[in-house]
């Protein structure tokens, strides 16, 4: 498999650092550091040429806030970079297999798709789809991004067949 055959890109973003006020888990907001990291992610995606054609975002507040702030950063970096977003309840509390099923349902006219989700699902999906396997899932901090290159259709997405094109934590995105 050569890189030119990698026609699809799956961008996996773990929500930015969240706060722990006394609210239901689904409604936890971003912490101060999360609010600072999220736009950085958007700018990095724009600068690196990973502008998503579509975004699938968890309905959890910390994920929605992550995307809303990342979208601002993306629009800063790339003019007109405002991809459509779908808030998907299945991303919240999704197992790795649940996430894979979502990926297999994606539309083929969307070549680069960003999923904003949660651990352990996001990290396990990055590891499970990639060959050779990258870092263990414990090393997938908040607001980190994994970019996977895939060949073929979304429906044919299978474990161990993607190439890890990039894995970046927020500190690296600023440099």
């Amino acid at each position, binding site marked *: 498999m050569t890189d030119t055959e990698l026609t699809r890109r799956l961008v996996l973003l773990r929500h930015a650092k969240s706060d722990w006020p006394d609210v239901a888990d*689904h409604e936890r907001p971003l912490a101060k550091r999360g609010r600072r990291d999220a736009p950085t992610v958007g700018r990095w995606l724009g600068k690196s040429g990973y502008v998503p054609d579509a975004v699938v975002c968890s309905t959890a507040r910390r994920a929605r806030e992550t995307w809303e702030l990342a979208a601002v950063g993306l629009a800063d970096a790339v003019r007109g970079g405002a991809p459509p977003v779908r808030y998907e309840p299945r991303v919240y509390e999704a197992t790795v297999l649940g996430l894979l099923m979502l990926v297999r349902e994606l539309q083929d006219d969307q070549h680069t798709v960003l999923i904003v989700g949660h651990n352990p699902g996001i990290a396990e999906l990055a590891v499970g789809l*990639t060959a050779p396997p990258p870092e263990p899932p414990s090393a997938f901090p908040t607001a980190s991004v994994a970019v996977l290159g895939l060949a073929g259709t979304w429906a044919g997405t299978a474990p161990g067949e993607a190439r890890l094109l990039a894995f970046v934590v927020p500190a690296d995105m600023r440099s």
Partner: protein
Amino acid sequence: MSKGDSERDKDDESKSKWLGQGEFELGTDGPSVILVGVDDTVTSNRAGFYAAGLARRQGAKLIAVFVAPVPTMMSAAPTGAAVLAAEMQAHDELASQMRARAEAGAREFGISITFITAHGDAYTEIKRIANETHADAIVVGASAKAGHRLVGSLAVRLVRAGKWPVTVVP
């Protein structure tokens, strides 16, 4: 506002709209889209046949939904491409078995069927797919295993949702 509150608000809104506009097909021609939950239990098999009979007699569209269960220990299990591949293969095999069975049943009844497979909590997924497909009625098998779900049987949860007529087949 918690997730529960916002869902309840939404449910209340749609319920009052239904009361006002009579969106249920009751008293007219009956349901035009019937959703049946299928898995590998005896009762759900009977539910499938019952729903197929309903669909044939009423000329309704039948949607069979198979929700693959999430293994309890899955999220704690070690992961990697091999594990994910095994999980995916197990899921796909089960789903294609269910699909084959549903399609064979549909041929027997001379009706067409739409088979949808999902993964996760049966109630959540059936509710989602019922909304997406605009189902008018839901048919499920009665729970064969008493107390096997912590939060009550699938049928009870669907009835409590109060969004569709629910038929429970013993």
